[in-house]
Structures are given as structure tokens and as C-alpha cells.
């Protein structure tokens, strides 16, 4: 472990951080936090996607979805493995943590109940992953993760193309546009929220100062909007956001942040803007599928441990 000054000097010289020995306490805490979020997100996307993959319209479509799920588990493995190299107990982190302590986005706690919702998730959620990890890939100062993300970047590209291709297909089916619109209505704002607190409220500035990522939450949110909104528009789907040429950015056409009814999958726009403290409270309480999805991942480990003990 080295001092903060030493790590900042190393980074100023354009050198990457390669191991625990080259990290300072703040760098280590920051990289562990961002890796945990990434690993948990990839891991829980697997049961979340599998839940909807069972509604696949054909065997080939199911195989495509399973290919994506397999990729996601591979991505999770990369991040958990790096955490292990940084002194974290991987087994404990995955199998012994309480479901509500997992750090993945709230969106994955809301069930994807149909194939149409899975493909919109590929187009929206995987795009969010592509934007976030693409930023880490290009800017991260942690060498081992940067190199591992070459593969992840390509695979996430496939996932979002999968979503886009299916959306283009479904929109041509009778009633397809309406089905897609219903999914977009709740999933679009949920992905906008995915990028977290606005820059004015963000607490963990070490992520930018130490080069753990390159862009701020609001910049990444704009990057996502700049491709997700046009995709929907070309398919004739309404989104609650528009591009404001004068400001050179997307503006949200609904109160942000906003209350969400997870059971009904409905945003309570009529209640107006809420505070980020209220959003954080919802996130911390987790959503409907948190215990089931994490429990499913942990079940085999627990049963095996019980069998060994008996």
C-alpha cells in the first residue's frame, strides 16, 4: 500500500495501477466499490434475464438469451476475481451477503415478465452497461480491469444489438408497437435513474479524481440518452425526453427523480418530483425480486455447505 500522494503522482505520469501494492487506501476503497457494483450487476442480470428468457418465442431465441446470460456470468466472474486479487473474500461476497446488501441497480429487482421486456432490457439496460463499462474501459487507471474489459465491451455490444434487432422485429408484428410502448414506458425512466445521483449531489468524487472512471453520472446519462432516445423514435415509440439543440443535451420531460410503483410497473409522474433521499430509500429497501434472485444464486452454495456439515 502506498500514500495518496504517491498514487496521484503515478497517475499524473500516465502510469496504470497494476496491483494492491500500488494502491493507496482511498484508491483501494474506490476500486473495490466500483468493482462490486459492476460484479453484482452482471451477476444478478443473469437470474433477471433468465426469468424472462423462458418466454422466448423459439428455441433459437432461447439459445440467444442463454448466450447473453452466459456472457453476463463471465463478466461477473472477471470483476469478482479482481476483487479477490484485491483481498476481498469472494465466496463471502457472493454467497454469504444478505440480498439487500448487493449493489446492483434497482432496475433488476423489477421482474422482466415477458420476452418483449427482456429485449427492451437488452436495448436499455445493456446499453447502460455498455456506456458505463465503455467509460471504464477507456479511462480506468486500474490496468487488470481495463485489459479484461476488451472482451466485455464486445459482448455487451452484442447484447444491445440483440435488443435492438428484436425491437425492430416486434414493432412490425400486429400489436407489437403497443407491447413495446408499455415496456418502454416503465423501463426508460428506470434506466435513466440507473446512472445515479446527479453530479451536484454525488459524494464519491474519488472515482473521477483517481481515474476509476472518466465521465460523471450526468455525462454518462446523456451518453445513454443520445442513443436510446433516437432508437425509440425511429421505431415510433414515445419517450419522455427530447433533445434541446440550444443546450446541446437531452432534457427529461417528466419529474426527475420520481416515485415508482414496482408492483404495477408504473411511474407516479402525477405526484411530481421527489427527493433523491426518497429514491435512495427505495433503492436500499430493494425491489420485489431481490431476495428471490440473490437467493437463487446462493441456494446451491448453502445446500452444499449444509450437506458437508451434516
Amino acid at each position, binding site marked *: 500500500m502506498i500514500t495518496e500522494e504517491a498514487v496521484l503522482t503515478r497517475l499524473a505520469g500516465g502510469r496504470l495501477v497494476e496491483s494492491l501494492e500500488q494502491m493507496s487506501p482511498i484508491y483501494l476503497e474506490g476500486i473495490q466499490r466500483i468493482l462490486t457494483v459492476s460484479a453484482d450487476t452482471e451477476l444478478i442480470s443473469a437470474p433477471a434475464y433468465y426469468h424472462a428468457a423462458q418466454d422466448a418465442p*423459439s428455441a*433459437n*431465441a432461447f*439459445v*440467444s*438469451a*442463454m*448466450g*447473453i446470460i*452466459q456472457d453476463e456470468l463471465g463478466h461477473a466472474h472477471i470483476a469478482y476475481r479482481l476483487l479477490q486479487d484485491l483481498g476481498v473474500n469472494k465466496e463471502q461476497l457472493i454467497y454469504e451477503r444478505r440480498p439487500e446488501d448487493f449493489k446492483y441497480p434497482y432496475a433488476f429487482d423489477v421482474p422482466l415478465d415477458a420476452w418483449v421486456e427482456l429485449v427492451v432490457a437488452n436495448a436499455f439496460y445493456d446499453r447502460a452497461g455498455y456506456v458505463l463499462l465503455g467509460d471504464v474501459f477507456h479511462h480506468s487507471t486500474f490496468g487488470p480491469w481495463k485489459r479484461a474489459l*476488451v*472482451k466485455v465491451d*464486445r*459482448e455487451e*455490444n*452484442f447484447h444491445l*444489438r*440483440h435488443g435492438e*434487432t428484436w425491437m425492430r*422485429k416486434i414493432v412490425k408484428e400486429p400489436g407489437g408497437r403497443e407491447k413495446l410502448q408499455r415496456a418502454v414506458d416503465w423501463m426508460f425512466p428506470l434506466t435513466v435513474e440507473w446512472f445515479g445521483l446527479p453530479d451536484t449531489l454525488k459524494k464519491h468524487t474519488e472515482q473521477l479524481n483517481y481515474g476509476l472512471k472518466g465521465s460523471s453520472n450526468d455525462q454518462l446519462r446523456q451518453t445513454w440518452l443520445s442513443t436510446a432516445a433516437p432508437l425509440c423514435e425511429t421505431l415510433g415509440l414515445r419517450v419522455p425526453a427530447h433533445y434541446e439543440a440550444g443546450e446541446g443535451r437531452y432534457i427529461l420531460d417528466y419529474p426527475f427523480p420520481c416515485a415508482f410503483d414496482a408492483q404495477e410497473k408504473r411511474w407516479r409522474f402525477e405526484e411530481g418530483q421527489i427527493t433523491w433521499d426518497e429514491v435512495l430509500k427505495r433503492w436500499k429497501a430493494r425491489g420485489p425480486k431481490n431476495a428471490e434472485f440473490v437467493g437463487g444464486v446462493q441456494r446451491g452454495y448453502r445446500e452444499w455447505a449444509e450437506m458437508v456439515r451434516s
Partner: protein
Amino acid sequence: MTPAQLARANASPEEQPLWSALEDVTDPEFPLSVVDMGLIYGLRREGEKVHLALTFTAMGCPCMDFILGDIRERLLQEPGVSQVEIAIVWDPPWTKSRLTAKGVERLRRCGVTV
């Protein structure tokens, strides 16, 4: 010369533009075409109908529907083409020796060892 390049070299003047059209169809993950991947085993034009023999890199390829859809969509944009018939061929199996030099170079640029 890879088998696909040989087939292309022997293509008729009516078939040549179809090979070029297939160069627009990219692999869902990597930025290289199905032609440079060496997936096209044969192409024949019969009036408005195109017969294509195609393989995949693996029998469990999760992108089969994807690639077939993209190929159909692109070939149907060619003047005078109204039907695309695709036969999936598993023998001989695909190996990396079927990649074109351009394909190898593109994959290497993406960090894939070939």
C-alpha cells in the same frame, strides 16, 4: 486463398454484387463481415432467387437467428432479388483458417488471438 475467397473468385458477374452486399453484414459482436469470418460456403443466383450455403462458428452459436435475419434483409435489398434460400452446412466445420486476412487483422485489433 480461403474456400470462400475461391468461391467468390469463381462467382458470375450477377453474383459478384451479392458477395459485396454480404460484406455489409457484420458479426453481432465483432466489427467484421460474415464474408471475412469465412461463414459463406457458397452463393448461387438463379434469377430472382439467391441460394446461400452458410455455416456458423459453433453449433451452439447464440447469434444464428440474428445472422440469418441480417443476411436475408441485406440480400433482399439488392436489385432483382426477391427470395433468399439459406442452407446451413456443418460439414466441413468452420475453423479459424477460414478467416480472411482482413478478418484476422480486425479480430486482432479487438484483442482476439487468432
